[in-house]
């Protein structure tokens, strides 16, 4: 229901004109009008390049962390995790501070170091390559997690066998490790492609000043006055179709992977000894991590305490005004923080409960239509946030369900977005619990519910808490659906930051961004206290 209703309205609107007549004129305009074709082309270039960049960076890093004796592997994993949970739009704003051609901190350092002219610059973030770079910074963790997890699971025996048979380390890598990891890399590339394609915040922040649109910003601009809902709906459908197609492709590839990985009792993965190279490898990993974590966080901190955000904190430039402004003058701060926390908590709770129920029913086949249920729970993964936003707007601004203007519409959006990942995670957790234990309890006379409460629930506790935390983090960073659905009373922090960016209030953004990161990392810290926790998928915004 949650997914189908908005998508039906989306399709209805896409095929109707303003007067309500059936038409394909919207689509004809879509494929003939260069103001639509250009963004479509840009989006495809953007998504492809981001996917390639992500794989090029994440696959070697995943290998270093999972299969070598590089030092500080846990720290590197934790830092990739940090880039994973950083809201991409916040990263984009931080990169404006770093690499805007004239005022960017890095370009200023370059000019000072090289003694260059005021107009010369090293980086220009307001370009397509700049946008690809920033998107890759916050998308590569998806590839990293998939690759590292896959490599973690490849048993050492296979590689041992190869070396016993006389292959050199490189031959083993080429003929055993790489082929086994390849499906994960390809799946990662697809995920990265989808993320880059459906991202809204970063292009809105970096592409518009450069004078180009992507599909998501184009769809969003169609919502502006005078709103062209029909065209927005029509423009959303290609994104939807592409996503569904690519997810099918991903399912096929991941299916093949699980079939290639040999089962049985697995040995510890053999770690490749890097020798002297291990410090070089670590250095490389840290250079990569400079981009999504150290530099942007530094820029935000700098901006939060600077009078002029494009200058380094110094005695003249130091101020607490931004903090004072956000907490004591900005009248929407309290409201936005409250709304965000209410939505995060309730979406995480409702989403987790729904995911537990559905995962239980499908993995224990409690009901006859468990397959359909599983499909419905995973279907929203095919709906990009901005498309869902358009669909929900069309659905809930009219009778019978007028939810626009309430937190409910945002709650529905966030739960819908979070459900697939939550479901997949819990479903695999249910699979890991041997049904024998439950059956023993049933045989001894316990009811189904009693068994669930006494046996299954305690075994699943860590997974459930982890799912809750991940929905929480996912909701904090959600922007693309929220930006379509908010009203003045239902603003959340992400939308407030986006608003402030449009009027160039960088100091206030830095403070709000840091608040957001504090919430996020508080929850991340909670997850890290849970033992045996693996990576889960989040959606970008």
């Amino acid at each position, binding site marked *: 229901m949650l997914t189908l209703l908005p998508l039906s309205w989306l399709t209805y609107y896409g095929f109707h004109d303003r007067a309500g007549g059936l038409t394909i004129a919207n689509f004809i305009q879509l494929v003939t009008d260069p*103001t639509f074709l*250009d963004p479509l082309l840009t989006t495809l270039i953007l998504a492809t390049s981001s996917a390639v960049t992500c794989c090029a960076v994440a696959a070697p890093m995943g290998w270093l962390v999972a299969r070598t004796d590089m030092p500080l592997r846990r720290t590197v994993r934790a830092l990739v995790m940090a880039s994973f949970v950083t809201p991409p739009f916040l990263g984009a704003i931080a990169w404006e501070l770093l690499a*805007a*051609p*004239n*005022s960017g901190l890095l370009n200023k350092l370059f000019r000072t170091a090289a003694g260059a002219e*005021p*107009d010369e610059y090293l980086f220009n973030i*307001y370009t397509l390559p700049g946008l690809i770079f920033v998107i890759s910074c916050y998308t590569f963790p998806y590839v990293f997690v998939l690759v590292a997890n896959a490599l973690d699971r490849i048993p050492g025996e296979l590689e041992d066998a190869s070396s016993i048979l006389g292959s050199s380390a490189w031959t083993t890598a080429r003929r055993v490790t790489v082929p086994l990891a390849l499906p994960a890399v390809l799946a990662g590339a697809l995920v990265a492609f989808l993320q880059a394609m459906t991202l809204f915040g970063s292009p809105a922040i970096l*592409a*518009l*000043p*450069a*004078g*180009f*649109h992507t599909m998501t910003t184009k769809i969003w*601009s169609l*919502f*502006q*006055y*005078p*709103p062209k809902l029909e065209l927005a709906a029509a423009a959303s459908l290609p994104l939807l179709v592409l996503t569904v197609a690519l997810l099918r492709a991903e399912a096929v590839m991941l299916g093949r992977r699980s079939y290639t990985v040999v089962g049985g009792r697995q040995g510890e993965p053999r770690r490749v000894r890097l020798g002297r190279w291990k410090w070089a490898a670590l250095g490389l990993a840290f250079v990569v991590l400079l981009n999504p974590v150290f530099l942007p966080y530094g820029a935000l901190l700098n901006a939060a305490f600077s*009078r*002029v*955000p*494009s200058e380094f904190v110094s005695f003249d430039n130091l101020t607490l005004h931004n903090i004072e*402004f956000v907490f004591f*003058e*900005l*009248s*929407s701060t309290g*409201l936005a923080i409250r709304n965000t926390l209410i939505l995060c908590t309730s979406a995480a709770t409702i989403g987790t409960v729904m995911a537990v129920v559905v995962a239980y029913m499908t993995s224990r086949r409690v009901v006859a239509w468990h397959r359909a249920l599983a499909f419905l729970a995973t279907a929203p993964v095919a709906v990009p946030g901005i498309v869902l936003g358009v669909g929900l707007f069309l659905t809930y*601004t009219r009778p019978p369900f*007028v939810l*626009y*203007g309430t937190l409910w519409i945002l709650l529905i959006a966030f739960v819908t977005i979070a459900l697939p990942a939550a479901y997949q995670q819990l479903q695999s957790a249910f699979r890991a619990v041997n049904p024998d234990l439950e059956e023993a309890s049933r045989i001894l006379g316990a009811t189904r519910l009693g068994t669930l409460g006494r046996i299954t629930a305690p075994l699943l506790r860590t997974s459930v808490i982890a799912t809750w935390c991940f929905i929480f983090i996912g909701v904090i960073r959600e922007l693309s659906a929220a930006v379509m659905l908010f*009203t*003045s*009373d239902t603003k959340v922090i992400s939308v407030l930051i986006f*608003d*402030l960016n*449009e*009027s*160039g*209030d*960088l100091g*206030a953004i830095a403070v709000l961004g840091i608040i957001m990161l504090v919430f996020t990392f508080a929850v991340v810290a909670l997850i890290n206290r849970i033992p045996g926790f693996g990576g889960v998928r989040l959606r970008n915004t």
Partner: protein
Amino acid sequence: MPGRNISRRTLLKASGAAAVSAFASPIRAAAPEPTAVTPALIAAARKEGKVVYYTPIDLPVAELIAKAFEAKYPGIAVRVERTGAERVFQRIGQEYASHIHAVDVVTSSDAAHFIVWKRDGLLEPFVPEDVARHYVAEYKDPDGMFAAFRASLSVIGYNTRLVKAEDAPKSFADLLDPKWTGKIVKGHPAYSGTIMTATYEIARDIGWDYFEKLAKQRIMQVQSAADPPKKLGLGERAVMADGNEYVLFQVKESGGPVEAVYPTEGTPFIVSPNGLFKAAPNPNAARLFQCFCFSPECQELVVNRGAMRSLHAQIKDKPGRRPLGEIKLMKEDAAAVERLSEEIKARYTKIFRV
């Protein structure tokens, strides 16, 4: 020179510039009796406890006004909802279409919006005493639905560290010089009411041709009219093609290396009215806030701290800022903007591609 004289002369000249405005309505005056702030009004407003103010005024200034109101009337919180005027208009449109009545008082830097809201019967007739006494007819609606809260200018500006005063552009035509390629920042008319009004005035007086050539200068396209002055202050771009004079003044007065230029072709003049909504959820607080907005106290804040222009007859310009009367202004025409806004947005998007 005594302040009164300046402001009167200023008003006369400025009103000449703004002859055809949102206020020139054919319907004859049916404005309600002016309202003074009474203890009864304050008590009723305090009972409501809050007022929701939608505004395009740059956030720090808008919050300053809100905090001044809260200090004067403790117990009534002001929630400032700031975004570009065109977005404010879209937001109210979307909310009202879904029967969400969240807004009490609105300011818009696109006076054309008031023509639409008035025509749709959304505005509450209400005349604060100050408006009746100290505002000339050109700056208030004859039916008492709205009045000019402030005036502002969209100016050219430059960063004094990057551009020497003698090299700075003097006119819109100068901005088309190849030496400015890649160095200009400008706001967007689909976001900002100021830029919308300015775009109309420039297109009318200079021609769309100007924009077509400007688009070839590889401009940095930001949204709010408040952003170009800030980008100049950061040193991100050397020149701004449009943007708020008052934000530029603020950047300058806080030590930023920026300077305003009043283009020789004329400077776009923008009148921003205030009105309150019939369906306001806090009607008394809305009235009190509207009275406060036009009080000399608030208008002084608007001029001294906000660096904007007041149309209140008792308020004088801050020394050191060029008086309105000495600036060649482009004529405001809200009715034409109302008629043409869709076309302006479409044409602009086509030329600048975003």
